[in-house]
């Protein structure tokens, strides 16, 4: 194996030579008895390795234990999924109930609307013409709106054609963690 081309023997065996190198090595192989013998020996060794590996049979208990372990893992995964689904459902139900109670239920924190009779009278005396004097018009009734707290609602004024009437759109504020949904 002292010729330079002999060094390519293992690359040739591993099919790692390009077409040109392969051609050159095969030319060399035609005259080098050392490489011919090495290739023949290596092919015999490879055949023995393949046969030896094929003789190694997986013991049946191993296959059985693998099936059992995976079965257990599968059952645990299903149980974990079922429990997390149930927990999610409970959480959604609690959140829904809490929101319902907060905004729509008996104890809902809604804005309170109070008819201010004194204010109505005061405004009515300064307002001309009086609404009740105009056929088909309801009298203007000022109201006082109270909020549960300063952050619970947003009041947005809408343009009104009547100078004696102010129109506000009132939006509740839902607070979830650090986010606010209007």
């Amino acid at each position, binding site marked *: 194996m002292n010729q330079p081309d002999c060094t390519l023997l293992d690359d040739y065996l591993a099919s790692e030579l390009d077409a040109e190198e392969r051609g050159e090595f095969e030319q060399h192989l035609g005259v080098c008895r050392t490489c011919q013998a090495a290739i023949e020996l290596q092919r015999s*060794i490879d055949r023995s*390795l393949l046969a*030896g590996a094929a003789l190694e049979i997986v013991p049946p208990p191993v296959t059985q234990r693998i099936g059992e372990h995976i079965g257990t893992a599968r059952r645990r995964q299903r149980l974990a999924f079922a429990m997390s689904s149930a927990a999610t459902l409970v959480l959604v139900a609690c959140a829904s109930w809490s929101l319902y109670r907060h905004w729509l239920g008996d104890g809902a924190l809604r804005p309170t609307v109070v008819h201010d009779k004194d204010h109505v009278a005061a405004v009515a005396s300064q307002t001309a013409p009086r609404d009740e004097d105009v056929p088909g018009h309801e009298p203007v009734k000022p109201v006082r709106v109270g909020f549960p707290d300063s952050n619970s609602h947003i009041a947005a004024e809408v343009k009104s054609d009547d100078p004696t009437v102010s129109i506000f759109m009132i939006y509740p504020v839902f607070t979830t963690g650090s986010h606010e949904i209007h």
Partner: protein
Amino acid sequence: MGHLFEQYVPHVYRFAKRLTANSDVADDVTQEVMLRAWRQRGQLREPATARVWLLRITANVWNDELRRRRRRPRPSPLSDDVVSPAPAPLQVSVRQEQIARTMQALDELPERQRSVVYLHVCEQLELKQIAEVLAISYTAAKASLSAGRQQMRNKLRDLFQEFDGVTRKHE
């Protein structure tokens, strides 16, 4: 167990046996590989690459085990069932002995060379795939294959010539 993985249990077991040189440890490694593969099955994008993927997990599991052993060394030697060095000539055929001695020569190689030679010859993997399985460079895989094969040829040359002579004499 998924049918896809089930068919590769023998491949995993044989590679584990080569890595560990111990049937019991190979059993444990095979079980751990198949369990890990089942848990991580979502990561396998292409079923055609399942065999290489499982062999890579096998190498990983064995490396993890080696790290654990280095932290907590065990008193007993690792290798307990390397192929018997000298089977009685009358008990086994010439071919069987040739196979046994070849497997022994493989098991006596340094670990990386042993893995590379095994994966190339017995699993028919290309050097690029072997590099991927063992998490080494292509150049390292190529050098290990060449060195391992050369060592095996040196060790087995006389034996194969002798057996060829015996075989020819009986033909």
